[in-house]
């Protein structure tokens, strides 16, 4: 029995829900209404105390309006909005802590010359507390803080890394061959620039040379002094966060310094620190124009390290939760014990192929009649003629891009598919819509014995004869039923879990422009892929992950820029990523309030 773990995430909570009553009678569109936000933040004092906590708490650290994606355009077309954009409006620029993935990548690149450290990165970061999830992503600048647990884990990791680094023969090379304070100071300057991602100031340098002297005066040797320097640098806030303190203000906005722009670029595409080429460009002021920045963007995207941006798909499509799937072995006997990993690799291979192709576009992402499989996954799906452990392109007539890949269908239950959960996934992740939580007093199990002769689709249809149930379930079920031709582990089938013939024909509604009759997943994929609402949702998720925050009202021009560029490139996936460097949100930052 594969020990898949149960996924308690977003999809589960609202899954399988039958929604009566007033909870779901509101208007449902692709737009979340503008709401004020109690902004996230972090701090030490609490509400415990005399007289605190009266009345409603108000937000701090993010009082801007929060709206979802293209809704910030206020009903105008992207082109109309863009025509009104004049002075840069970068929106908020919250201080971003490195995500756990960014930390791992950064250490890997920082110590690329020390193989022992590169190989120890997974182990020394294994206990980092997982980041709080927000809007499906774990890299939101607003929520990435350093609670005590994280600080201790950073300390432990820094301890292991600094000890190994100082002991590595090639890590520090002294120009005059003498391991002394002069050599240590040179090391501080060169290594410090890599860690701080900018040249050190005199004040920065002096604190580390003082630290070195402290080690020596305490009776320790040169190696220990180096160890202490590396240890402290890796716990410095200037390493753990991406400060932008040297941006040049111009009225209401500021222009990031060359080094800040180098980090913006490298963390955008590599989820890591700048390389020597970027540092050199910053050194010589070559990251000033949009053309220079775009040229770097294309260079970075062509580099193997760009594969790290697959983390976006990992989080957007919840691939990282696949390990928690649970399947009843009496219903699904003999599953490959590595199925969650195989499903993750399938999607990785598919999107990697799209991203590396000059013609990889959004339509293909949602409609491709092919996927990638190795022998083990092919055996699971029943694809003939696939051998070996490497993933290869396999024609899959009737399937439709990521929509029908096993990982999407794995949001089901232990014993059966979940039409509701599948529909919910598409409604929230592909259409970016809000589905209210279920009200109380409803039976969500759909396993009533009196309905044993009905298919799940038919049972849900019965629920929806109740108007109050229908108001929410019309959002989910009609999309979910389209996938009934695949079982709860993503294999094709003609009979559903209750032995009834599968019926996939459906009518999708409640969207701006993705409404209509569909006969099967391929038709649904076509409907979604040509929808501006769906394209806008994808751009929104791209914005959220790569900029590390929600799209907010001041981002209208940035969002419009992104959408116009997406459209003008035929919805090319890689060009959308390049386009991320053309927005106000990327090129500028707010003047710190």
């Amino acid at each position: 029995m594969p020990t898949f773990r149960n996924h308690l995430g977003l999809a589960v909570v609202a899954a399988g829900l039958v929604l009566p009553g007033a909870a779901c009678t509101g208007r449902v569109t692709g737009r979340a209404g503008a709401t004020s936000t109690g902004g996230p933040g972090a701090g030490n004092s609490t509400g415990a105390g005399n007289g605190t906590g009266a009345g409603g708490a108000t937000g701090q650290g993010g009082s801007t309006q929060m709206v979802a994606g293209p809704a910030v355009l206020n009903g105008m077309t992207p082109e109309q909005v863009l025509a009104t954009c004049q002075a840069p409006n970068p929106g908020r620029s919250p201080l971003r802590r490195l995500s756990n993935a960014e930390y791992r990548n950064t250490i890997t690149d920082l110590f690329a010359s020390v193989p022992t450290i590169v190989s120890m990165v997974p182990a020394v970061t294994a206990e980092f507390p997982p980041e709080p999830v927000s809007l499906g992503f774990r890299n939101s600048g607003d929520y990435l803080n350093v609670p005590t647990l994280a600080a201790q884990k950073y300390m432990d990791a820094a301890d292991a890394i600094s000890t190994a680094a100082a002991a590595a023969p090639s890590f520090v090379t002294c120009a005059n061959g003498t391991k002394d304070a002069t050599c240590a100071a040179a090391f501080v300057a060169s290594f410090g620039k890599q860690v701080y991602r900018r040249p050190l100031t005199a004040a920065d340098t002096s604190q580390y040379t003082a630290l070195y002297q402290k080690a020596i005066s305490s009776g320790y040797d040169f190696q220990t002094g180096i160890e202490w320097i590396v240890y402290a640098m890796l716990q410095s806030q200037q390493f753990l966060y991406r400060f932008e303190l040297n941006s040049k203000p111009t009225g209401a906005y500021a222009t990031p310094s060359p080094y800040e722009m180098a980090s913006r670029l490298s963390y955008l595409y590599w989820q890591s620190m700048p390389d020597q080429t970027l540092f050199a460009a910053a050194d010589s002021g070559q990251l000033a124009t949009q053309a220079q920045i775009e040229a770097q963007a294309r260079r970075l995207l062509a580099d193997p390290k760009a594969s790290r941006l697959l983390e976006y798909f990992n989080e957007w499509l919840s691939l990282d939760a696949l390990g928690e799937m649970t399947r009843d072995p009496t219903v699904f006997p003999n599953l490959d014990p590595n199925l969650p990993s195989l499903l993750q690799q399938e999607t990785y291979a598919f999107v990697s192929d799209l991203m590396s192709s000059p013609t990889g576009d959004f339509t293909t992402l949602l409609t491709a009649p092919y996927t990638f499989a190795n022998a083990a996954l092919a055996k699971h799906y029943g694809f003939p003629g696939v051998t070996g452990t490497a993933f290869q392109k396999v024609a899959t007539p009737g399937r439709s891009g990521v929509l029908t890949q096993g990982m999407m269908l794995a949001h089901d239950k232990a014993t059966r598919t979940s039409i509701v959960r599948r529909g919910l996934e598409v409604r929230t992740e592909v259409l970016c819509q809000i589905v209210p939580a279920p009200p109380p007093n409803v039976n969500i199990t759909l396993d009533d014995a009196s309905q044993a002769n009905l298919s799940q689709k038919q049972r849900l249809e019965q629920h929806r004869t109740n108007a109050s149930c229908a108001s929410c379930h019309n959002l989910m079920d009609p999309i979910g039923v389209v996938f009934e031709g695949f079982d709860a582990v993503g294999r094709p089938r003609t009979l559903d879990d209750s032995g009834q013939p599968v019926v996939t024909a459906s009518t999708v509604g409640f969207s701006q422009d993705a409404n209509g009759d569909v006969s099967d997943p391929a038709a649904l994929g076509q409907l979604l892929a040509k929808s501006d609402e769906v394209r806008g949702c994808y751009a929104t998720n791209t914005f959220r992950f790569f900029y590390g925050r929600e799209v907010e009202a001041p981002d209208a021009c940035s969002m419009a820029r992104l959408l116009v560029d997406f459209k003008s490139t035929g919805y090319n996936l890689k060009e959308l990523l390049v386009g991320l460097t053309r927005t106000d949100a990327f090129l500028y930052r707010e003047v710190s309030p």
Partner: protein
Amino acid sequence: MSSYKPPCKPLSRRTFLRGASGVALALPMLDAMTPRRAFGQAAPAAPKRIMFVFQSNGDQISRRFTATGETTFQFDEFLAPLEPYRQDLLILHNLDKRFGKLPAGSVADNHEQGGSSLAPWPSGTGSYPIGGAMTTIGFVLGPSADRAIGERSLKDVPSLPYQHLVYRVGGNHNDIWNLHSHAGPVGTQSPIPPETDPYAAYARIFTFNDPNDAAAQAAIKKKLAKQQSALDLVLAEAATLETKVGAADKMKLDMHMSSLRDIERTLQSPMTSTAAGMACVPTDLGTKIDVFNDDNHIVIGNLFFKISALAFACDLTRTIQFNWSGNTSNRIYKNLGMTQGHHDMSHDSSDPAFANIRAIHKHLWTQNTTLYDILKNTPDGAGTLWDNTLVVHWNELAQGDTHAINNCMVIFAGVAQNTFRRGRLLDFQNKASYSDMLLSCFQYMGFSDVTSFGDSRLAWLGTPLPGLT
């Protein structure tokens, strides 16, 4: 920069833990902690501790008790495992959470909001596309009681190493359904990740060393110097950075500095009298098992119970939040013969479904008594930890199928220094709230200066619960 400098550089507090042999005892903890009053000395007054214990998805309100008299109450089936402990229990029956008093848009689904019942604040927005009405919903905008009590403890005992400890059994995904502890301050969303691996949790806070091993002591001294010098540098740098950023970023850096000072205390704080207790000794956690395999969840829970008792015994913290799962848990209790998820079943009002819900809770209440036994068998002060600890059992809901947040049951367990009159059931008839109950927790801890906690709309009485003492 570091605000506190000891007059001389102490060695790690852990180095001095009495009874530490440097060799992990290959004994079960209960054996290693047989109560012994050393040397016939009068033990110093033990501090009060509090431990919040969570289980999910509500239970079945009508099947908790067969009689509800104050002293004549009778446990029904799923609470029956508690009967042997009834003289040390105080049942708080029919409390209301009052989330409906918060305006729409600042309150999540009852599961989600209920998961932050220890943090009685409105929810923010921005994180989840489900759970709100027509808006996204976020984490709660203020601290949870475990954190607030921990911070208040620190005010009285500035050397206390850990403000609080937060543990959870099960997956390591951290979202609104899994995060029950919050740092605050009021007005901010700042969830605190729990520890999910008991082996790592143990290693993080306990390091037992042999004070007679000179080489080991030299290594410890060197590591301590490395740690302290780095903390000094990072804190000094942080103080400068704080002046250069906006208010929201400053709060983030404040929290980080607070975390670094937490670590600094674990390096510097002198051993307290309680920490020298006989029970503060290494414990063997056994062969490491997969902490995320649901088949192991009882073992993992019990390991966290052991670690919690040891943390109390060593006076590393006064406050612990332990969770059997996140809220809305959909764990499949295969060990009880079930094939459906807990949350899924909790939405079914049929008799067979409720039978499963009761079976799950009976199972968890049975496990909870393991905690009681560990506390009873751990020497502390003149008695045991059971004498000096209040265990607060809570749930995000009262009952799952209705998502009820009134008729909630909280159970206070433990002698708790005789703060409360026990062996009783108090029926509040939904005219007292969870936040009133939390005020009672502050009162128990001796923090009578804390006269309110949480958003005032979530209080019913605005005072500690009456009739408890």
